């Protein structure tokens, strides 16, 4: 309660008595800004901004933006972990996922999605889909730069856009990805050069 001082108690009249001269409080405040201003030349801690497009802060591991679909192996579509169980579609609060199960030649349902669409104009990045997925298939991507040239472009992500290799998942969320691999009983991929589309991070 050291900050309470004389100032918090009493009437305005007492207040003026507390500071010996009118205007002293303002000078004290100006001293603070001056200290901050001069300090910023000396102490890099006081420089709190980064020059964004050239310089980027590293993202924390948990960081999440929009969902992505993980695939194993080399084939982005054939290797998808998704079995089109539609749990994420049902649990999504903003109903932004749309799934159609694939069928084989005789019309029997297959364990893979024919259509997996994600509408990022309504997705709010809450991460519930990743939370409820029992197959460790849908996970949260960390890429946050999604600007497009026109208004309606790239708002609907197809499964081709969503598919990301397991190595990429390891790169952005290493701990989580290792846990997922252990659950699925697969070998973790070797760390390699970042795949295309990965967010660039400054050290």
């Amino acid at each position, binding site marked *: 309660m050291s900050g309470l001082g004389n100032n918090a108690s009493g009437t305005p009249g007492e207040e003026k008595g507390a500071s010996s001269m009118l205007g002293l409080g303002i000078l004290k405040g100006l001293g603070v800004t001056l200290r901050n201003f001069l300090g910023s030349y000396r102490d890099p801690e006081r420089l709190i901004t980064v020059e964004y497009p050239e310089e980027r802060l590293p993202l924390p591991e948990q960081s999440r933006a929009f969902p992505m679909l993980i695939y194993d192996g080399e084939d982005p579509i054939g290797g998808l972990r998704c079995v089109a169980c539609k749990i994420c579609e049902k649990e999504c609060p903003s*109903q932004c996922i*749309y799934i159609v199960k694939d069928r084989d030649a005789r019309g029997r349902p297959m364990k893979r999605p024919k259509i997996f*669409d994600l*509408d990022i*104009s309504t997705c709010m990045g809450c991460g519930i889909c990743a939370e409820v997925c029992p197959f460790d298939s849908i996970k949260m991507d960390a890429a946050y730069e999604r600007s497009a040239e026109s208004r*309606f472009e790239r*708002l*609907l992500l197809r499964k081709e856009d969503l598919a990301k290799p397991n190595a990429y998942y390891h790169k952005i969320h290493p701990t989580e990805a290792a846990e997922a691999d252990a659950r699925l009983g697969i070998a973790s991929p070797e760390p390699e050069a970042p795949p295309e589309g990965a967010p660039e991070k400054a050290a």
Partner: protein
Amino acid sequence: MRDPEKSSELEETAPPGLPSFQEIRRILEERVEGLRLEFIPNPAAPDQSSFCVPTEFALETARILRDDPRFALDFCSNVTGVDWLDQTVEETILHRETTDEGERTIKEIVRRRRPGFLEAVYHLYSMRARRGPLVIRQRTANRIDRVRVASLTPIWRSAEFQEREVYDLFGVRFEGHPDLRRILMWDEFKDYPMRKDYVEPDDYEYEPTPQGEAAAKARRHYPYGGAR
């Protein structure tokens, strides 16, 4: 839910810091002439069970709840509406029969149709004595034309905006409210959006990625493919 045995058992519980529900009923019915309170048991959280107060006694009862030192409920925290549609309820009725072997009770389950109504729910606390909540409710006669209940804004000012909100979204009319206007919807709005049977207006706007229900709507509104 409407098991009289269970209900009377729950009536023996007490809201935090207050006398038991039975006792509260006794005090209130003693002080307000003609008042009959209906106990609404709440099996999930028994200490948040409630009383349904008839509209004509609501203001007087509320005044007692605020001013009587046994309650001193000076803080009306939450006012809200609930919409109950027509529904079939099962009720258990107990018959007492005296036979040769002594008294015994027979349970009979009766189904009846309960007409829908709107409800205003008040959560009352005491800031001075740190008690509560005591929950009281008022019910309207139906959902269509007899939707009046008593406003408790004269007792607790905090109900002012909240009752306006209930009026706005549920269409409950509060008698004696100083300024009953719409608060969240615009003044010209006609319907009551929080009602369970509210039908949203057909005002679909072009969106680039319609799917499911939205896609059906989109086809109806933009047969030639949208605004692009």
